[in-house]
């Protein structure tokens, strides 16, 4: 850690800067030193900024010139757009979907890009393996679905959420705290934890195979170790492809669940 403080850019390079405690990989492998003399500007933060810039540039470029007859590029963008618009927003939200479509598009693309950073050269770290970013996105989703509920139903929203239909009054003392816990506390926490844990664990597995393989490969005088190291590193590529899939899947799940929560908030009864 002391060493990397002296070389600020070292923190941006994957799997380096922690060589003295690289094995075994653990939560400490996700700790990155502050850069530019701060404690808080680190690699995950920089790559989050880069992801946001990439997304903003991508969307602005994509919407700069759209035609009724799409070009090849526009067709590809429309594919992503329609995937969220028709596949998630319209299916789950019905006629109100256009109001929440920007939010869902942001969730999907923002999560997807940051997750795929885990498999992208230079970055090699899924941003959401730092739980702060996952909490941030979950809190945004919470604000949006609770806000949508209050906007649609006013204070009646609380009654709709806390007292399920057909529950006898004497069960209220038990049901109301349970529903509150379920709808207002557990939902955002599970959103954040699901995303974080998938990214964190996936990256940890990759590190185990890569760092472990490297150590095995470098071990002198033991051919079996060296062969195992090669196998381990080759296998890490398969794990990386699996991580690509999981990254996309988690982006989809986060978006679908956000849409589902919004849908239950604006529904007339549930």
């Amino acid at each position, binding site marked *: 850690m002391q060493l990397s403080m002296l070389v600020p850019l070292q923190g941006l390079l994957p799997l380096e800067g922690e060589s003295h405690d690289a094995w075994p990989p653990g*939560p400490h492998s996700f700790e990155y030193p502050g850069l530019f003399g701060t404690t808080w500007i680190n690699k995950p933060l920089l790559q*989050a900024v880069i992801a*946001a810039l990439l997304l903003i540039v991508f969307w602005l470029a994509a919407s700069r010139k759209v035609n009724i007859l799409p070009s090849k590029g526009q067709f590809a963008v429309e594919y992503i757009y329609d995937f969220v618009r028709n596949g998630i927003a319209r299916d789950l939200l019905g006629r109100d979907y256009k109001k929440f479509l920007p939010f869902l*598009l*942001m969730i999907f693309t923002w999560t997807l890009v940051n997750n795929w950073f885990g498999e992208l050269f230079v970055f090699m770290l899924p941003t959401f393996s*730092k739980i*702060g970013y996952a*909490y941030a*996105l979950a809190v945004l989703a919470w604000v949006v679905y609770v806000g949508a509920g209050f906007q649609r139903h006013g204070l009646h929203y609380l009654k709709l959420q806390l007292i399920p239909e057909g529950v006898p009054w004497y069960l209220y003392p038990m049901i109301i705290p349970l529903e509150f816990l379920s709808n207002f506390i557990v939902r955002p926490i599970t959103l954040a934890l699901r995303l974080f844990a998938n990214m964190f664990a996936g990256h940890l597995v990759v590190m185990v195979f890569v760092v472990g393989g490297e150590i095995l490969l470098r071990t002198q005088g033991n051919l079996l170790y060296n062969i195992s190291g090669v196998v381990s590193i080759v296998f890490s590529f398969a794990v990386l492809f699996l991580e690509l899939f999981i990254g996309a899947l988690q982006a989809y799940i986060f978006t679908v669940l956000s849409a589902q929560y919004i849908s239950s908030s604006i529904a007339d009864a549930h």
Partner: protein
Amino acid sequence: MVAQIWAPLEGSTLGPLLPSHISEFIVGIILAVLVWIVIAKKVVPTFEKMYAERADAIQGGMERAEKAQVEAEQALAQYRQQLSEAREEAARIREDAKNQGAQIVSEMRTQATNDAARIMAQARQQLDAEKASVLKELRGEIGGLATTLAGKIVGESLADDARTRNTVDRFIADLEAQADHQSDAPVGS
């Protein structure tokens, strides 16, 4: 080594569930909101507007196609009507022509019959006239011949009345035969 692994957990019970730094959370929210604003202000309106235009274009195209189909059907009906009218007219013309032809044929036939009758009448009239004139001429000649004959008979012998009568009769018969032959010849040829 165990101490190394769990080092980040020291001082907290959350481990990696606690953000390393509050900046993660704040930056995460700010960046997500920025992307959200860009998509909400620029991307979604642009795309939705284009989708609406596209739907309009497709709908307009369908309407145009329907219109064209209706027009084509109208044209087809009109064409069929014209065709049947033309057929009727052709049939009518054919019928007329047939009738007219028959009429012309019958007229011509009548005319020809009339002409033939007229020509025959004319010829007959001419023949009658010629016959009359020939007869008149012959009668005149017969008188002369009779006188000549009488003279001859008288000059030769008037004793035998029967012979004389025979001679006269033969002569007249000869004459008649000659006259018949003469008058028959041009008609017969």
